[in-house]
């Protein structure tokens, strides 16, 4: 039987590593968009409050 343990480890490191990296990118992007939307919402509410005062 061929000794191919290193290639087996490398194969799964690439597969699982790329999947994990993509999930992290999606998570970070989701957080960034969420913050930007919340900040825009806050900015649009603020002038109304200032007008009311």
């Amino acid at each position, binding site marked *: *039987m*061929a*000794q*191919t*343990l290193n*290639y*087996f480890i*490398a*194969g*799964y490191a*690439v*597969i*699982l590593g*790329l*999947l994990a990296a*993509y*999930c992290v990118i*999606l998570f970070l*992007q*989701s957080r960034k*968009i*969420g913050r*930007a*939307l919340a900040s*825009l919402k806050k*900015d*649009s509410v603020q002038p109304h409050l200032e007008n009311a005062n």
Partner: protein
Amino acid sequence: MSYLSILAFALVLFAFVRVLFFTPVEQTMGLVQKVFYFHMSAAWVGMLAFLAAAAFGILYLSRKDLKWDTLTAASVEVGLLFTIICILSGMIWARPIWNTWWTWDPRLTTVTIMAFTYIAFILLRRGVDNPARRARFSAVYAIIGFISVPLTFFSARLLRTIHPVVFGGGETEMNLNAQMVATLFISLAAFTVLYIALLLQRARLMAQQEELNQQMAAVDSDYDWGE
């Protein structure tokens, strides 16, 4: 995190544990043969994603709803991720088995053409600003680009190739025992659920990004620039 994402994670973990501990080691190739279970699953999901992208493209052209355009773009992106995983894991398998990282075999050539077709989709889509034009372009591209998928799928069956075929390959067909076949189908199911979970997450993010862009454009147009 949605229930589907948790299910996808659990299924991939289960498939991985099964590959590691409950699937026999192939006698000739050794441990590297076990890369094949996730390699083939990635290849299957990549092709499924491009098929779905073409279907979403047809739905956009018939209904003119931008929701289908978002799904087209998300499906292409996720499909490309799985295709790249397939190509890289295949190269790692090929090194000890074929004694080379890469050869211009028909299957490897057609899968590379397929990957570049969809890389071009993502790059060209970014160049179109108008949402309706971008959606129309993406839909037509996804439908025409799908030609590369059957070309890749049948290349190992119809042309002279050294790439193994799992089912219906004649001389080049792989010999898998019952445990190996069970692991393969579990991996295929796990990757299919993972694809759906990633597709929905990516489509939701794209829709949120579009909403953010529209709100920012509205804020910019409302703002008094002191002119």
